[in-house]
């Protein structure tokens, strides 16, 4: 009897371990945009034109891609066909130039908002954030309250200091509260300014502030389902690239 129980225990353990350690390959690229402008004088690496963005959406839609948002990532299965369009900094041109295209093509995207910049010139306004959140096409994400202001090396030193780490958490929480006051729920995804973070920060962000996903600026794609629970890599979408060039970058990373 004892031998039977032991044998069954071993089998059960193997099943559990096998289930836990199984991570599906999902290969989801997250494209990283910043500004989308109609001003030809403003175009540079991280400021693309409205027509370039529309080309991207049209291309990926025609190719059968599923444009999703980070909150849907945990439910993704299969290793082809899903893509996330992410926008950092919460510029107002997201509402003026990106949102209309999303509506036209029934596409989704995530925009990471800097809390202290809400309602400021050239940044998203409260009513715009609310409207986009209610549309179901845009996931509103957190890009911290003021942590985008200090230089990257200062941020990294803070993230490795227990005292300043508390300040960082307080700051991110403040952005959360600003967004909650606008959209009535807390953001589920965070984009780390400059892609900088520490393991301690990531742990606190997920455990204390209950974020589901986080993204960095390191070049890469979300290869497996387990990657979803770590800071996820992205692919910069540069002005002058064509959608085909972007897609080739994705293939090279798979």
């Amino acid at each position, binding site marked *: 009897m004892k031998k039977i129980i032991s044998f069954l225990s071993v089998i059960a353990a193997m099943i559990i371990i096998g289930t836990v350690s199984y991570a599906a390959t999902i290969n989801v690229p997250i494209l990283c945009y910043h500004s989308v402008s109609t001003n*030809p004088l403003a175009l540079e690496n991280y400021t693309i034109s409205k027509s370039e963005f529309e080309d991207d959406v049209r291309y990926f839609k025609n190719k059968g891609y599923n444009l999703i948002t980070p909150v849907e990532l945990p439910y993704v299965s299969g290793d082809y066909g899903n893509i996330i369009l992410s926008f950092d900094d919460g510029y107002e041109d997201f509402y003026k130039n990106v949102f209309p295209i999303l509506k036209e093509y029934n596409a989704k995207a995530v925009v990471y908002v800097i809390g202290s910049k809400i309602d400021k010139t050239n940044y998203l306004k409260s009513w715009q954030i609310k409207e986009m959140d209610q549309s179901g096409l845009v996931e509103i994400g957190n890009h911290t309250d003021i942590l985008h202001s200090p230089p990257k090396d200062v941020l990294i030193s803070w993230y490795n200091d227990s005292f300043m780490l508390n*300040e960082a958490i307080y700051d991110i929480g403040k952005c959360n509260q600003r967004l909650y006051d606008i959209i009535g729920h807390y953001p589920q995804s965070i984009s780390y300014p400059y892609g900088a973070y520490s393991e301690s920060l990531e742990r606190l962000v997920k455990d204390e502030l209950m974020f589901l996903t986080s993204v960095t600026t390191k070049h890469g794609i979300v290869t497996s389902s387990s990657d979803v629970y770590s800071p996820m890599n992205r692919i910069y979408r540069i002005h002058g690239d064509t959608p085909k060039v972007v897609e080739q970058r994705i293939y090279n990373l798979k």
Partner: protein
Amino acid sequence: MKFKIAAVIFLLGLCVSGIHAMAKDAFLCMRPEENVAVTIDENKNCVFTEMRASNGALVSPQLSKEGVTYLPLRYICEAAGLTEAPAGVDMPEGSFRYNPLPDGQYVEIRSGGQYYVHKLGDYFSYDDGSGVIKTGRAVNVDGTVYIPMGYIAKLTNGQVFYNDKWKKISFLSGSLNHDDYLDAENDLRFDRRMYMEYEFYSNNLTGSTMYLATDGLDIRDLKDETAQKPRSISRSGNRLYYLNEAGTVMTKTERQPDEAVMQFYDENGNGASINAVTVFVCRNKIYGIQAESGNSGRLFQANLDGTQFVYLTNDYVYNLIMRKRDEVYYLYYCEAATKATIHMIDTRTMDNYTIELTNYSHVNVLDKIKQFVVGDRIVATIDEAGTLRVFRLDDCLEDFEIQRVWDENYLTFWTTPEGYELNNITAMNFDYTNNVLYISATTEGFSASYYYTLQNNCLKRLETSDYPITDVALFKNLGDWTFHVKIVNGGWQMNHLAYYDGNVVFEDE
């Protein structure tokens, strides 16, 4: 034969006069992304003017990634003395035109006997006048056609100058002399810059009747020029704006007997009745606090001709001051409801920032503010109990409106340097050029002025006085001096201040 010779001479004359077509006198000083330019009026005084496209929209210089400054086509061409030619006719000398044609959109310019045509979007090269070859194009930016400013200057014998420190760009039309307007660093000559309240160091915080004259040297008493005792004085060019004893906003030309009540009208042309606590002009607008509840009320703004009057706040505010940093003007005020929250307005965008100064437990360090001033990395307050507090910051508020204050940087001054109780501060003001806080106080039977600098990190005595010093105003003049003007025993006294490594002395002694 004689007729033919005369005709040739006549035509040659036309060509010669065309080659040296006289541009109108136009001086513009501006910064990228800002929609206000400084020009010089007929009295050689500076005025701010809004930059508007032909359709009335506000525009600003655009700096391309190649480092080329673009301006709206009509704006820069007219400044350069070109006139707009109608479509469908031969272009006369000294004209420009934007011409949509079946095969594209074109910009055409005729100047210096030459004809230039550029298709929108197509790059072209040009000498910017200093021998440097630049590349630019005519572009449509949200419905307004922009063109490189340096290119138009080159075609019309104008000049473009760049001040790298302050990112200022100056344009002078062909008829103007550079030295009349710009200094050695290509910045506006200081004697042309008599438009700033900045030189008056928040005159609106004092009852001072003094003002800095347009020559940049003299301090004059406006009381000698007005019917009633004036206060809250500021200037735009040679126009002075101030309050009379009843709080009515008045205006006059310096040294002219043309004092008049300023009328205000909103965007619909409806009159606005204004009785102000304080006013000043800054960057082509007038700002003030409407007197609605003691020294507080709604913050308002209007054009200098009184039009476009609007309230900027619904809530009551007080202690309105203006501070210039890195050539940008910022307004500060305190919320009347809380007396513990300071706001900052960036006058370039009119964005309103809520200042957050807390300790590391995230508790607000500001409380019961009676008066405050803001400097570089310094905020000083006098609370309702008369206590002076100075907060040393890691950064300027204009860079980080949310800051934590370490305990050692939160200074409360309970006593004077002599050891007397400091609880009767009679005046406070701030020198923005040298980053010095001034207070005057009456204590234990004598009066004194003190100052605080970041370098010394303590109060130091400037002078003592037999009578209470009840008001302090500060002025900086062309000679790089700061005038310290105080009211003592009912009369004004003035001294020159000098600064040495964070210390202040009276130069007159």
